[in-house]
């Protein structure tokens, strides 16, 4: 059910949108040509920044060279109109295409670089584009640039500055609308997973490098368009317009406006454009005040201007919610998008959905420098069984898990998944085969709600066509509802459905673990690797975990459980593998292994006499 129309209009978001709309109309109503000019420039900045918001706000990639994409768009329009006599309208598509190509080139180093390095490298890219613009006299006019770019004309008539402003407003809001739809698409969710943890993204089968390039490429479209319109508006282009300060300005626009917020680029552009105008009355202190204000905003409002609005909205919601019954409002989140929002959810047909696969490792070794973390380990896991893996800290359990999931490559030996050799495949490729995992310390998308954190697990199964997502076609909306319902069903099965709208960062440790397991289940794993899921849990939570693992096993998923909690392993595992100092020392049925004298000496000690429920600390301590 949607909230009543009046309520929606009077909501904070509605008021904000209305205010923004009114502000946009001021230049038109006032008919002041200077205001129209300022408004147009603000819209161009916002349009250019929308793409950067996708790259950085959603994908977490820092680009300090975004201005060069605008430059590419502007110069394509300038060259085509001035040197080849094209009308401006005809140059828009080539300008966008060229900016996309430039964006892809700029993104390539991002595949191998850490975040801060990328920030400076994109800056260097902007420097290089500037170098080309300055250096090529024939094509770009060198340092003087190109002059005489015509205005936008439509069937022979030059458009007035007011109509150009209107067109830019429409383009800007269209770009915002599309960026909102990207944000809510499976693609957008995948980008957010990359932003918050690339390891998680890989473990869910998201091709991280491809997705990064994709985000940059998309960001080129509005940037190129903004460049083309700017060139036509000013009538000239020169390299000085697009120096690094411009790229830096665009980055500040999205950070000041609200990083990753849909309206962030507009608020930021307003701030960055209006602030200097207001400050002109301070004369020579203008720039100092300007920079000081930037500092103050960044320190006091770390989430940007849009973040203030979100903060107020959250406060109001908490005020209202204090009187509300904590019902698992399952329908509420779904109803916003989908045709139906049932509070009850259909049970998933587990036997239909999940198919366990076998795993075999043969002579697997891994050295870190001179350290033998794992040495010639071999064992097999039958499809649909639960295998517990135990051993002291530093015995190589997590290393083994990381090699099975593809984060490390083995030094020697083979890994067979479902009878096929998967050595050498990336983690994301293995995740797409059906190897799911959780992490020793839960890794969630802390700023997203629990439902999104679970739905992101299904990334590898979902529609990839961004065009369908851009218009939110019925087919992708149905799909979205389907996965949200499945997510709620799993959350309900694990008893935390009522947490669906909480930010994941606010959850208790135990709930985070559960969300992580549910997320892994959403990817339809055929083999699930659990890395010490009981660590940090209380007795009650361990019991819940035990039921969860049992449910997963009943669904037919093969489970490898790395644990120190022997009682838990005893209750859920079919077989046990014991590692000690990188070597497999025992492998077999639960009873056999736990009474095996070698195992008792190496790991269990006298724990058996102390009874069930005791947690075993490794005889030797190591960093894990």
């Amino acid at each position, binding site marked *: 059910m949607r909230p009543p129309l009046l309520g929606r209009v009077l909501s904070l978001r509605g008021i904000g949108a209305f205010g923004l709309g009114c502000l946009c109309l001021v230049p038109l109503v006032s008919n002041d040509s200077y205001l129209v000019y300022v408004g147009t420039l603000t819209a161009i900045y916002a349009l250019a920044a929308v793409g950067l918001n996708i790259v950085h706000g959603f994908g977490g990639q820092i680009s300090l060279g975004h201005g060069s994409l605008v430059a590419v768009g502007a110069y394509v329009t300038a060259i085509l109109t001035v040197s080849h006599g094209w009308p401006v309208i005809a140059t828009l598509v080539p300008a966008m295409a060229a900016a996309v190509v430039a964006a892809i080139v700029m993104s390539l180093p991002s595949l191998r670089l850490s975040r801060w390095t990328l920030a400076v490298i994109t800056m260097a890219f902007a420097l290089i584009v500037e170098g080309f613009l300055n250096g090529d006299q024939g094509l770009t006019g060198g340092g003087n640039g190109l002059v005489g770019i015509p205005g936008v004309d439509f069937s022979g008539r030059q458009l007035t500055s007011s109509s150009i402003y209107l067109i830019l407003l429409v383009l800007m809001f269209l770009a915002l609308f599309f960026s909102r739809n990207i944000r809510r698409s499976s693609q957008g969710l995948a980008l957010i997973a990359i932003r918050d943890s690339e390891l998680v993204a890989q473990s869910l089968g998201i091709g991280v490098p491809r997705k990064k390039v994709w985000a940059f490429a998309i960001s080129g479209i509005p940037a190129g368009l903004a460049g083309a319109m700017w060139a036509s508006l000013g009538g000239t282009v020169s390299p000085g317009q697009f120096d690094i300060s411009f790229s830096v300005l665009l980055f500040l626009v999205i950070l000041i406006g609200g990083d990753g917020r849909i309206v962030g680029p507009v608020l930021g552009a307003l701030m960055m454009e209006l602030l200097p105008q207001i400050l002109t009355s301070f004369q020579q202190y203008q720039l100092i005040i300007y920079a000081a204000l930037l500092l103050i905003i*960044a320190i006091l409002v770390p989430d940007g201007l849009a973040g203030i609005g979100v903060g107020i909205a959250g406060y109001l919601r908490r005020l209202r919610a204090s009187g509300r019954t904590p019902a698992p409002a399952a329908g509420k989140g779904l109803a916003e998008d989908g045709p139906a929002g049932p509070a009850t959810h259909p049970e998933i047909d587990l036997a239909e959905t999940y198919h366990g696969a076998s795993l075999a490792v043969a002579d697997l070794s891994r050295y870190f420098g001179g350290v033998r973390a794992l040495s010639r380990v071999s064992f097999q896991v039958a499809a649909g069984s639960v295998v517990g893996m135990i051993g002291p800290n530093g015995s190589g359990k997590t290393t083994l898990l990381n090699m099975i999931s593809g984060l490390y490559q083995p030094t020697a030996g083979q890994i067979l998944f479902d009878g096929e050799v998967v050595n050498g495949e990336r983690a994301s490729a293995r995740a797409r085969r059906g190897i799911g995992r959780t992490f020793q310390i839960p890794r969630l998308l802390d700023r997203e709600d629990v439902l999104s954190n679970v739905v992101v697990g299904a990334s590898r199964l979902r529609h990839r066509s961004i065009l369908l997502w851009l218009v939110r076609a019925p087919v992708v909306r149905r799909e979205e509802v389907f996965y949200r319902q499945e997510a709620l069903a799993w959350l309900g099965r694990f008893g935390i459905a009522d947490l669906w709208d909480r930010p994941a960062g606010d959850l208790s440790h135990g709930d985070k673990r559960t969300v992580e397991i549910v997320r892994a289940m959403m990817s339809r794993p055929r083999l699930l690797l659990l890395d010490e899921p009981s660590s940090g849990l209380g007795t009650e939570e361990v019991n819940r975990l035990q039921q969860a693992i049992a449910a997963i096993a009943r669904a037919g998923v093969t489970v490898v459980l790395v644990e120190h909690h022997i009682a838990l392993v005893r209750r859920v595992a079919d077989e046990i593998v014991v590692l000690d100092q990188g070597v497999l020392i025992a492998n077999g049925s639960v009873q056999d292994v736990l009474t095996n004298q070698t195992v008792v000496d190496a790991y269990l000690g006298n724990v058996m006499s102390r009874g069930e429920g005791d947690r075993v600390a490794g005889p030797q301590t190591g960093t894990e």
Partner: protein
Amino acid sequence: MTWSLFLQTLVGGIAIGCIYALAGISINVMYRPGGYFNFAQGYVVLLGSILMVVLFTEWGWNWYAAALAIMVLGGILGGATELVAIRPIMRRRSSSVAWVITTLAVSLLLSNEIGARYQGTSATVSAPPGLSTSTFTLGSALISSYDIGLLAFVCLVPAALWFLYRTRHGLAVRALAEDRDAALLRGVPANALTSISWMLGGALGMLAGVLDTPLSSPDVTLGFTILISGFLAVAIGGLGDNRGAIIGGLLLGCVQSFAAIEINPSYQNVAAFIVFLIILALRPRGIFGAPVLREV
């Protein structure tokens, strides 16, 4: 290209490369304790150059006294930047990227101030007493005693830092870089060490500017270019490694100066960037960069 032109270009490249190396080392020093650096560092270097012109050429100070005073100022500026622009943000959310904005704001502030007050002179500064920029022939190369002194001095800096990082406090900085949480638990005074590192970084950055003045007159438009060159030097050598910064800086300087002679001065950054990309493809973490062993 004749042999003597080749050598000339090489000498020029090494000289400017020394400046990049020192700028890169200053970035390394700031980066080490907290994992963040100053995007205004290019303008800090530039400010060092301009102050040198003012103090030495216009006010007639002694060369070494001027350099020392500027380094002290650089230390104050670096420490103040960290105190005002970084610490308040890191206190709130340590994973925040807001330090990028705030140091960029500092860079806007510096560039605007420099642009407003310094009209640009063609004045160069002479070499420090004892050295000279007038060239003599060595083999078939024209070289000055300042070039040699500069290279020797810049190579000494990592050695000095090596000893510094082996003192008690230096060890604590390395501990912070290795495992911040563990170091904090052992009572390492992170704030004080970060402050000191940023002061040192500021002083070294300004020193890079000072040492550049006998080579060329300051160009107020080059702030970000210097930052990028310093950072590329570091990225080529391996982030955090000072020997690497020297190798990276010298390589970068030479590539730029050959590209400027052989192709077109506008393309010298293009050439430097291509070399960087090639090295990156071969060694993603730079020449001396250590691979990350454990992620999970």
